[in-house]
């Protein structure tokens, strides 16, 4: 049994929820999102985030706009859509349910 693999799978599962959580607070470009995730110690490698962002964008959960940057390359500012907010609320409810379930099982 590979512990690391299980950990990666668990992280990946909540990654989508967390990204939506970050963007629910306001617009952000990938580097910002990555920094927040890293600070929260949720991120191992950045590579997993980019496909996720693109997929969420294609599902119309997210939208983005380009903005020029004075210091570097242009930035893609991601924003959560109305559909995304509903999607996020669903995930949040699920997360709470899961949390309660896990707590309950561990306490008993």
């Amino acid at each position, binding site marked *: 049994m590979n512990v690391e693999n299980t950990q990666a799978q668990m992280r*990946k599962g909540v990654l989508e929820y967390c990204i939506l959580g970050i963007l629910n607070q306001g617009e952000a470009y*990938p*580097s910002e999102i990555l920094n927040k995730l890293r600070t929260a110690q949720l991120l*191992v*490698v*950045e*590579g*997993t985030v*980019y*496909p*996720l*962002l*693109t*997929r969420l*964008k*294609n599902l119309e959960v997210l939208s983005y706009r380009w903005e020029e940057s004075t*210091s*570097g*390359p*242009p930035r*893609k500012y991601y924003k959560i859509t109305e559909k995304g907010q509903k999607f996020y609320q669903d995930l949040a409810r699920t997360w709470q349910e899961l949390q309660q379930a896990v707590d309950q099982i561990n306490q008993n």
Partner: protein
Amino acid sequence: MNKTVSIHIQGFPFTLEEQAYETLQQYLKALKEILINEPGGDEILQDVELRIVELFQECQKVPSSVILQTNIEEVIAVLGSPENFGEATSEKQDSTQTTSEERHGKRFFRDTESAIIGGVASGVAAYFHIDVVFVRAILVLFTMAFGSGIPLYILLWIITPSAQTASEKLQMRGLPVNFESIKSEFKGATERVEKNAKKWSSQFRRDSALSKGLRQIVLLIKKVIGILLVLWGLFSLIHVCLFLFVDPAIIPAQVNGNFTSLGELGSLFFETKQLTNLAYFGISIVLFSIAFTSILLGFRMLFFFNRKWFSRTILFFGVTFLGGVLLLGIVGLQTLKSFTIDGAVSAEVSSISADSLQLEIDADSYWSSTSKYRVSNKNGLFKPSKNPDQWFLFAENGRIYKSGIAITYTTSTDSLFHISIEKKANGSSYQRANQRAANIDFPMNVANGQLLLSSGYSFPSKDCFRDQEVIVKIAVPKGKKVWNKAAVVYPYSSENQIDQTSHRAYIYTDGKYSAW
């Protein structure tokens, strides 16, 4: 000292250590292979490249300083190995499996890794998931059976790309084929053939030693053909001039080793002087056109001159050629007409009441395969030929001499041998045909139960060759025999009836009949 490479990522210039550059390139290539089949793969790649720009800018303490291998390793560690990108999308693949299958359409690649020659066989094996040994065996069988294996192999080699990248290698063994994938496969193949052809022709045009040598040889062959064409053209031109401006009666012609003249030859085939002249004129025009065209083509190969003038002249000779052919056609039709109607003159010349008929033609008589009795001219009653063996024609003093007659046997209705002679010829009308037939002279003699036949016949030269023929019909009474010298030529095959349908003949020797 390290070599550096300058690159642009998403429009931003960077200078990289050579090793760093190679590592980055490999990383991006691997990434591309994984993302290529994903929806929005290009977009993800763009995002990643933008991120790389950011990360590079972060590690540059001084702007535009060189990116080192260690920097690249750090960047890759932050971004994660290419598999991380794939794993994220693999979840999605599960949920939308039906659509992802189409995207993974299998493609046919040459498998150069397990190749013996070009990897075609192993590519086929990978495509159909069968053992490569079978494919090779089939190819060898094809080659042995029809030789078709070799061109087939070369064709596949040319039109299929080799699987070079990992994703191509995966695709090589991919999912089942559908109509769309086959269509795109063929489209791709035609594009590749075009590309390859362009590549090769440009390579050939470039002055490699081989192509130079080849061109020299081609040029030499062209010159030689040119010279031959000019010589041949001049040669035929001389002949044409002889035909046109010299009386054909003095042009020598050879028939069976005997010399005669073209004029006489013509008169033996064409009924009138006019037709003969028209025939010669037609042949002249045709030959003239061919001769001039070949001279022109020859010069064209040797030197270059005005193309417009050239093509017009060729066109002119094309027209004269057709005119000549037309003229010959008319003459030919006229002559054919005099072959259309069969005429015949038949008469009973003698009836003999002897117990047996002694038949004499000459010593060199033989039976042809059609069971018609044909004889050569040698020692006949007839005018002997200068060259008696298989001669084609012999004309002298206004008469044409031909050798070979047919003898047929029938059953006599009474107790007499009946000998009749049938002479045949063709003509444009019954009158003409019958007249020609009557003009045939066939010497023969009947005396003391002996039939003496000539082995040939003659007719006037003005009648021309119109299929003149002589048939000697002998009706044999029941129980009587036809002898030729000591052997029985024609007895009854049985006690009853002569086999009239086949006219078979038998020799009777030592009390036995045998086919003769």
